[in-house]
């Protein structure tokens, strides 16, 4: 392996947050707590994290919510101080924990450009030189003298991002910035990131999107409960991340079944997590007192996209339950079930959205993406 220069070296970082039972933000509380020896709980957010990022690397950090990603990023950015361990930095760093830091709603777009620029390390002179380019990239020339509070959220994000990409520093760190903005904006972001990758800019990116990790990053690590559980090859890390997402969040699961109990329709599957392509058995039941003649069930994605639905149609059904077998030709992820019943006169008796949830998993395959798994093949040819 060739000798590569290290950009950031993180060594055995520990970070705890102290969570008092009652946050003592008043003197009275503080006095009470001294006497009572307030039983504080410390939460280990990061527990012995070590890794190196080399110069010219596009480094990804993934992990579920609460795994310590953002804390790690804030430690690297110098916002937090580690409880123990060290972070060595070789070169200047510009952190984008969030786009548009310091944006003031009462100021004009123009003033905000200079304010945000200063916070990112630019003098007024440098900002004046870049100003026109920033405004042009954001495509909001005619709004620059308006107050920021009169901007749409999309315009604000565009402005913030346009300032951000002007930042030139040895190391850039981004936290979930790709998750904001509309599709057109996200495309623009991706183009900028690809450019970074091409130019061997050192970047650390925190993201939930495995697609971004596999297409952009050269290496990645995955955090779970403050520890590194996978590191190195992006595919390996992406696969580990998808596996960790399998068991549904137990709290929402409990809530779901509790909700379902109180409802007229009850629904249950044979499983909570299914392998891609597996058959899911759904059983839907309702009180015998209801004259149900029609039943329908639908599957939707976590963002509300309607994936699949079926109903009994004009055939009048009898009984107080129905069961379906559905082949899950679905991409990995979490899904919701929606259920509805109608009476003899085709009037809706009851319907529930998101009455239950399930998830689909698969071995990670970077060649395939999307909500559904369609049959496909491809052929290459050379046109003369």
């Amino acid at each position, binding site marked *: 392996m060739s000798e590569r220069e290290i950009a950031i070296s993180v060594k055995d970082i520990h970070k705890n947050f102290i969570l008092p039972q009652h946050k003592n*933000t*008043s003197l*009275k509380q503080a006095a009470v707590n001294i006497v009572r020896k307030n039983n504080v709980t410390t939460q280990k957010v990061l527990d012995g994290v070590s890794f190196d990022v080399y110069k010219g690397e596009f480094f990804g950090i993934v992990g579920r919510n609460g795994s310590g990603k953002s804390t790690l990023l804030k430690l690297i950015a110098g916002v937090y101080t580690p409880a123990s361990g060290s972070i060595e930095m070789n070169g200047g760093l510009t*952190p984008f924990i969030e786009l548009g830091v310091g944006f003031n709603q009462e*100021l004009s777009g123009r*003033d905000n450009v200079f*304010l945000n620029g*200063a916070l990112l390390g630019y003098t*007024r002179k440098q900002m004046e030189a870049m100003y026109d380019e920033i405004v042009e990239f954001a495509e909001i020339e005619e709004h620059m003298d308006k107050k920021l509070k009169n901007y749409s959220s999309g315009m604000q994000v565009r402005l913030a991002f346009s300032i951000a990409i002007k930042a030139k520093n040895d190391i850039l760190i981004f936290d979930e910035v790709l998750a904001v903005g509309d599709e057109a904006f996200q495309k623009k972001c991706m183009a900028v990131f690809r450019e970074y990758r091409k130019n061997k800019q050192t970047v650390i990116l925190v993201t939930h999107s495995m697609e971004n990790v596999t297409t952009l990053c050269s290496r990645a690590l995955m955090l779970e409960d403050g520890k590194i559980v996978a590191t190195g090859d992006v595919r390996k890390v992406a696969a580990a991340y998808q596996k960790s997402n399998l068991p549904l969040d137990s709290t929402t699961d409990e809530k779901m079944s509790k909700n379902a109990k109180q409802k007229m329709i009850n629904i249950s599957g044979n499983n909570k997590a299914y392998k891609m392509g597996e058959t899911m058995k759904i059983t839907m039941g309702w009180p015998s007192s209801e004259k149900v003649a029609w039943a329908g069930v639908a599957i939707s994605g976590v963002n509300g996209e309607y994936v699949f639905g079926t109903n009994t149609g004009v055939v009048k059904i009898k009984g107080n339950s129905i069961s379906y077998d559905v082949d899950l030709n679905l991409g990995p992820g979490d899904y919701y079930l929606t259920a509805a019943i109608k009476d003899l006169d085709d009037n809706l008796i009851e319907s529930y959205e998101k009455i239950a949830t399930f998830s689909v998993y698969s071995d990670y395959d970077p060649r395939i993406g999307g909500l559904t798994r369609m049959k496909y093949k491809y052929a290459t040819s050379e046109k003369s």
Partner: protein
Amino acid sequence: MRYLHSRNRAILSEMVRTDFKVRYQGSVLGYLWAILKPLFIFAVLYILFVYIAPIGKDIPHFGISLLLGIVLWNFFSETTMIGATSIVAHGDLIRKISIPRYLVVVASSVSAMINLSLSMVVVIIFAFLNGVYPSVSWLLIPIVIFEFYIFSLGLAFGLSALYVKFRDITYIWEVFLQAGFYASMVLIPMQAVPEKYRDWFFINPVVQILQDARALLIPTADNITIWNTVESLTIRLAPFILITLICVFGFYYFKSRSKYFAEEV
């Protein structure tokens, strides 16, 4: 190092600019209020002390002395009060970017300093109208103001770091300021204090500063300052020792707490 320096200066100047623009937004008279506010307070008190309860009737240029006192006191209460809340008010910044924390407090004090400079122009105009003419002693006024600035800043640092943990601080400080306004002889001329008690008043740094500033602005014979009143060396040094202690403690406490601001704010 040079990079850091220019970077911090840029942040400071943008924060002060923002503060100034935002503060007077939506008001018709805008920046003028920075001057009008102390003028109105002055007008009320002047009428009170010259016509209704005439304590200051026999003191030469009492009005100017009163106006200077109000302007300086305003600066003190603004620097300490806005400074105290500055870290929490900029929590958004503190949590997301690692700019030096002291910049936030300094920025709020610079705004107050600009207000003071504007007000001082008004004081000088009134001084002229009142028959007080420039003298060499005026050259020393900036030194006294500098002393006052350092004192206020030291307090602001300590208070702002305390305020992150204890939100009661601003209420307590408000009461302090209310009491301090009277104890610091902003209104009541020093002449009204019996001679045997005057020493005790001068332990308060604000009294020393206000009386010195007044004596420098209006250099007449009957000024009462720490220098011509207090004989004990200990009491003469007391306000300066107090300022040093408060500043050292304030800066040190701020510095030791500042690395936790991002988590606690």
